[in-house]
């Protein structure tokens, strides 16, 4: 959503254009229109819109994208801190957080 930008310059998204084959998959799966295609290569258009969901990296068959993905959720991070693990939203069975 264009109206919402969270903090700027924190996102871990990286694109290695040399590996890109221009398949457009990253454009299709990104829920925040971060990517575009220029001259048959992917480009990052709106870096600060990225919410680090990891969909682009997961679906890039060429491994051209890296991003440290995880839940952008304070409760999850606190959970992780308390248990000494990575951030984890406690969406156990029957609960419906996120």
């Amino acid at each position: 959503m264009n109206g919402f930008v969270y903090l700027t310059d924190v996102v871990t998204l990286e694109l290695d254009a040399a590996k890109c084959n221009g398949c457009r998959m990253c454009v299709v799966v990104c829920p925040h229109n971060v990517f575009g295609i220029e001259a048959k290569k992917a480009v990052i258009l709106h870096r600060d819109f990225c919410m680090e969901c990891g969909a682009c990296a997961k679906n890039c068959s060429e491994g051209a994208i890296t991003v440290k993905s995880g839940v952008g959720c304070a409760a999850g991070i606190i959970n992780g801190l308390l248990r000494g693990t990575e951030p984890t939203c406690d969406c156990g069975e029957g609960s419906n957080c996120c």
Partner: protein
Amino acid sequence: MTQVGAIPYVATRWDFYDRWGAVKVRWSLGRFKYRVTPGIYAVGNPGRDSLVFVTGNYKLSFDHLRRALKGIDGWILVIETKGINVWCAAGKGTFGTKEVVRRIRIHHLDQLVDHRKIILPQLSAPGVAAHDVKKMTGFTVIYGPVLAEDIRAFLNAGLKATDDMRKITFPFVERLKLIPVDLFYGKYYLLIVPIVFLILSGFNRSGYSLDLVFDNAGKTTVNLFSGYLAGCVLTPAILPWIPFRRFSAKGLVTGWLVAILLLFAGTLGLTLIENISWFLMIGGLSSFMAMNFTGSSTFTSLSGVQKEMKTALPLQIVMAALGIIGWIISRFL
């Protein structure tokens, strides 16, 4: 009967129980099982060329899908996501390549239909690698729209989602719907904290007075709940209009706005130190609750929230602690 055996048929209209169920889930009423048995379901009168829609076994996801498919003949393949919604399940990997591949195999999708296409909700993309599914099963993954209600438009456009259909938006109504999830975040603390405050409010210079407890009961409860609600109801509702990008800062703003109202309403304190203490406590509480809404929002990144929390959490704790100490001291002044 089909080649792969009997397949249950599902309705595309919601009945009363579906609606009531949706309300119960949003408000976390009861801890009953709210899931669909994984497997293949028929919608309308599907055949060997009909499209296959994949979803998780969280009943709300399934219900939204079957309602959106009204008037369409198709198959629904429900995979096991442990009753968790698509987005969360994909983030955790439960809605992932492995489970999709496994379900395609155990339900013999290749014998049910002649084509080799499956339609997945776009929000499952963080968990599913389309190229790997293709490699392992021969089925091509097509990501559908974010919202089930756009499915018809997606089908009419020849299985193409427009830019708008692919974007997660976060409109007012959606934010309001997510509030109940946060509202019960504190659960038991919602009761315990006010009670502790009540017990403490009896102390004064001359010992302990039950009259004081009764005098203060209404005020402390109103103040505490106001701070809580400022953070987890008011802040999400008016999110875009509050200055600052950090949720904790937004929560502080609304918390203090509410505190100013309470000051005029006369529920805060009698002394300056008590008033300041309430501002600290309400501000800290509201800020903390607002920060928790990052989990429900659809545009916050992990790196961003981590960065925000690094400064916000200590500040919130210090504010609340100073507030509580100040408030206790004010009992004895």
